[in-house]
């Protein structure tokens, strides 16, 4: 039996809070948990790192080119780096990383949880969740943070090269623009948003599958349901972040 939407949301929030509390608890990090979390992190972040860096560099080069030439056309080239940092680094890359990780790992995680539920493993209490799913969730969340950091770094480096080439003389203007774009409040909001993204990507697919049907035929629906949940949560977090920052 499917729960209502508010009920599912409440259960997801509760599940996420429990998972976050468990993840922040040092006693959670036993050797098997660390090993499993490391394996999940490697599968989600390490293996895709080269392709991810290339993709981010290409996207960054494209966006900085578009923004800089447009800003020059309007005589606003002094604002191009500020606009780029706000658009790509603060908004697009974290959102893109969250979507990428949720599609790549979150869907699989949700499906596996659904299979566990069908097999009755989850009926044995919280231990299976803690033993198997929590490390994987931690790995996914850490992957979101790591990929976001790498993606932003690549984007900032590509922006410098795109604007000033390999000359060191643009550094003064670049540093000033970066300093102006990343005010302390903006930086804190950015960190909070990425943390929410990580938690949402790690917990929402699992929460969606845990509350799903026990029948075998409902397993294929687990992944899409989890993804939709992730997309909704990401959109809400992104919307709230933009509203707080620019309202």
């Amino acid at each position: 039996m499917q729960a209502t939407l508010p009920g599912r949301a409440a259960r997801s929030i509760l599940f996420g809070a429990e998972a976050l509390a468990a993840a922040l608890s040092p006693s959670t990090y036993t050797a098997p948990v660390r090993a499993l979390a490391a394996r999940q992190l490697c599968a989600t972040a390490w293996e895709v790192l080269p392709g991810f860096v290339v993709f981010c560099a290409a996207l960054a080069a494209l966006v900085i080119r578009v923004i800089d030439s447009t800003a020059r056309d309007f005589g606003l080239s002094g604002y191009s780096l500020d606009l780029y940092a706000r658009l790509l680094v603060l908004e697009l890359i974290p959102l893109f990383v969250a979507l990428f990780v949720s599609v790549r790992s979150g869907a699989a995680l949700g499906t596996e949880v659904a299979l566990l539920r069908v097999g009755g493993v989850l009926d044995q209490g919280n231990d299976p969740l803690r033993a198997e799913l929590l490390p994987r969730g931690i790995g996914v969340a850490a992957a979101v943070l790591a990929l976001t950091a790498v993606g932003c770094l690549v984007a900032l480096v590509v922006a410098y090269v795109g604007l000033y080439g390999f000359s060191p003389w643009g550094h003064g203007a670049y540093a000033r623009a970066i300093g102006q774009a990343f005010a302390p409040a903006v930086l804190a909001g950015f960190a909070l948003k990425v943390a929410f993204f990580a938690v949402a990507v790690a917990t929402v697919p699992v929460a969606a599958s845990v509350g799903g049907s026990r029948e075998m035929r409902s397993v294929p629906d687990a992944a899409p349901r989890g993804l939709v949940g992730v997309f909704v949560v990401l959109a809400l977090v992104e919307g709230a972040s933009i509203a707080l920052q620019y309202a």
Partner: protein
Amino acid sequence: MEPAPLPGLEIRHAGPKAMAVLLGTAIIVAAFIAYVLYARGAFENTQRLVLMADDGAGVTVGMDLTFSGFPVGRVQKIELAADGKARIEVDVPEKDAKWLRASSIFTLERSLVGGARLRAFTGDLGDKPLPAGAVRPVLRGDATEELPGLIASMKRLLENLERMTAEDSSLNASFASVKTLTERMSGPGGALAGVLGGEENARKVITALDRANATLASLEKVSARLDGMLGKADESVFGAGGVMEEARKTVAQLNAALGEARESLKKADAVLADAQKVSASTRDATKDLGALRTEVEASLRRVSGLIDEINRKWPFARDTEVRLP
């Protein structure tokens, strides 16, 4: 009970790799925060500058104070002062403080596109440095405030332009005249016809020019003849036996004559002196003549008296005239 192993996670050296990812992430985050702090000037010594503006609209925390287009300070705080003005506190790095002097002027400009700009102008870089914590007024340069006046001026300009380009405007009439002129100028009479108003007049001018040319040619001949005549005159005047030579001779003769005349005059002068002397003698003689006359008159009166006596004594004598020698 152990959970069933999940497929897809058989990765070699997962631990070190995961550690590398986490370490890399931590380094990136720490480095980025440090860079942002550096970029925001957290590690450099600054001095405070307070700018007082009538209107703080458009000023934001973090915006730059520029000097010659280069940022030399950053707005740290904006608040409403007790006198109702906007108090803008700017942090100026010590290395850039040399561009700001006691006589520096600060402006807040708002352009149509882009944000407001705080700018500093220093006329005399040799002036004493701006003290820390200095309070300076901000002059306003607002492009939008000029907009209504600009639009009114533009409207007037457009109206004038419209009037100028109207069908019956002076400009159009002038252009029509110019067109007529150029049409005439491109005709057989050329520019002359255009200027003089017709081909007939142009022809007259050309005829007059031809005549003038002919006159000039004849004048040239006359001039040649005059040249000949002048040559001859020159010869007769200045040549050997010419007028000039004769004149020179005449002048020499005249000089001689004048010398002679001078001599004659000297003689005349002497004569005059003699005459003067004669005159003086005459004056003396005249004095004697007076006495003589007196005597003569006395004699005459005596003779007259004698005659009268005779007449009285000699009645038949009627001729009473006395004849003097």
